[in-house]
């Protein structure tokens, strides 16, 4: 019983880190309808900016995260402007964007490899890691609670923005048809830049949390694959789906590793992904609008 509780808590804690990443990824997906594999890169950028600012200004997490948010957000916008915009202006086959984003993720990773080296670095414990006991039965840490809360705050904020403001509506319209959205008077490029900025910012939040919890190195972005899987389970483009999918994935990983087989952890994860999709081809929260002929 205690073990189960502990594993469930472990699962939520892992899931909440995935959620921070998955929300940003889903946000970009929801507008450009492609999987931005460079998302992991923004996360790493955020992590390194935070690391070096902390070193430079002494452990002031506020300044450091602010700079990290800005830096990752701006890099995301620059990547969009430099690499994606020329492509989407010429074609709407999203596969091209996807390959460009894969290339971009390799570029970002290796920029860090050649400049700061491949070494593993750890952020000082700027986010409290104090153990928190859950009814004396299991332990978690302040950190985990904080990351879950952060994920929820961002989710709620974005959700309100998307469903109640006219810019949110514009994002949804643009995700279907950029050109026609332009005909409605929407400055599509500006809109996309905003979306990428927010996504980059979210990635930086994830990057800081990941670097504090785990460690920081150029390949850290790899973990986003799991977050993608989570987002797909939840339904691509759906933000609540991204969060729910993340929590489910985290739970599944921990329970499998704890009770079934630690080696089979990923098999179960991917098996679950496939089964979910076979049951609901657009994920748990994904909308499927049948095409009218």
């Amino acid at each position, binding site marked *: 019983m205690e073990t189960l509780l502990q594993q469930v808590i472990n699962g939520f804690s892992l899931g909440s880190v995935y959620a921070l990443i998955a929300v940003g990824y889903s946000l970009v997906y929801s507008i450009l309808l492609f999987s931005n594999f460079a998302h992991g890169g923004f996360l790493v950028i955020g992590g390194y900016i935070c690391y070096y600012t902390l070193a430079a200004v002494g452990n002031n997490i506020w300044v450091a995260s602010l700079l990290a948010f800005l830096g990752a957000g701006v890099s995301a916008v620059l990547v969009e402007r430099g690499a994606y915009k020329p492509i989407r202006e010429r074609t709407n086959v999203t596969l091209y964007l996807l390959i460009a984003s894969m290339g971009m993720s390799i570029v970002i990773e290796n920029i860090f490899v050649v400049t700061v080296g491949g070494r593993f670095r750890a952020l000082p414990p700027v986010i409290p890691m104090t153990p928190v006991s859950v009814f004396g039965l299991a332990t978690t840490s302040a950190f985990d609670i904080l990351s879950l809360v952060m994920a929820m705050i961002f989710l709620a904020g974005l959700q309100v923005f998307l469903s109640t403001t*006219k810019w949110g*509506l514009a994002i949804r319209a643009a995700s*279907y048809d950029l*050109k026609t959205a332009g*005909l*409605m*008077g*929407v*400055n599509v490029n500006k809109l996309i830049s905003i979306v990428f900025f927010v996504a980059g910012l979210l990635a930086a939040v994830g990057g800081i949390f990941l670097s504090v919890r785990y460690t920081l190195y150029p390949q850290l972005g790899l973990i986003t694959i799991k977050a993608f899987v989570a987002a797909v389970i939840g339904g691509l483009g759906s933000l609540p789906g991204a969060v729910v999918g993340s929590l489910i994935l985290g739970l599944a990983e921990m329970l499998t590793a704890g009770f079934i087989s630690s080696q089979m952890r990923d098999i179960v994860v991917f098996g679950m992904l496939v089964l979910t999709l076979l049951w609901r081809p657009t994920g748990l929260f994904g909308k499927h609008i049948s095409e*009218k002929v």
Partner: protein
Amino acid sequence: MLTKEPLLSVRNLHVSYGAIRAIRGIDLDVYDGEIVCVIGANGAGKSTLMNAIIGNVKREEGTLLLDGKPLAGRSYQAVAQGVSLAPEGRKVFAPLTVHENLMMGAFPIKERSKIGEDLDWVFTLFPRLKERKDQHAGTLSGGEQQMLSIGRALMSSPRLLLLDEPSLGLAPIIIRDIFKELKRINDEGVTILLVEQNARQALLLSHRGYVMQTGRMLMEGLAADLLKNPDVEAAYLGTAKK
């Protein structure tokens, strides 16, 4: 009725798609308060002209003025200047509901009360849309989508309304209603530039008309004159009974 300065003036417009030169030097004027229609065979470049005016395709060459000021080259800026287009092929936002589509049309409008009024107006114009307020636009019938597309263009309260084949796929009675309504909108001060295959009805509605052929302007004149022109009659009006 005609003022001296045209509301929209197009001079020497050129547009190409790769090697295809879709528009090769076109001049066109639309005066404030007018309804002008452009007719021409398939592939003449009518849709390209509309898209070029609103900045949906890149203009290669040419000057476009709206009210004497340069017309912006990007669609969102053109919309802000008071131009709006109901594009060919409807182009409704399929995953959004009818209501959300109309709200997208009202994107440049700031005052909420104005949006509400316009919405009511569009709904009285197309009662079917009101019935289907919360249906996803992608599942509407062809004609319903056409109504939505026109309604959406009206929602931005444009000074210059561009319509690319508004009658496409509509039932005769609806076409008649829409043409009547266009007349009324026009009377209320909205200038209209119209592309139609339904040339006879369009000319009947319009003040002036242009005839396009393979990227060039073949003719222009008062609508009534064009209707009577034997060449136009033979080529574009058909021998439809009247």
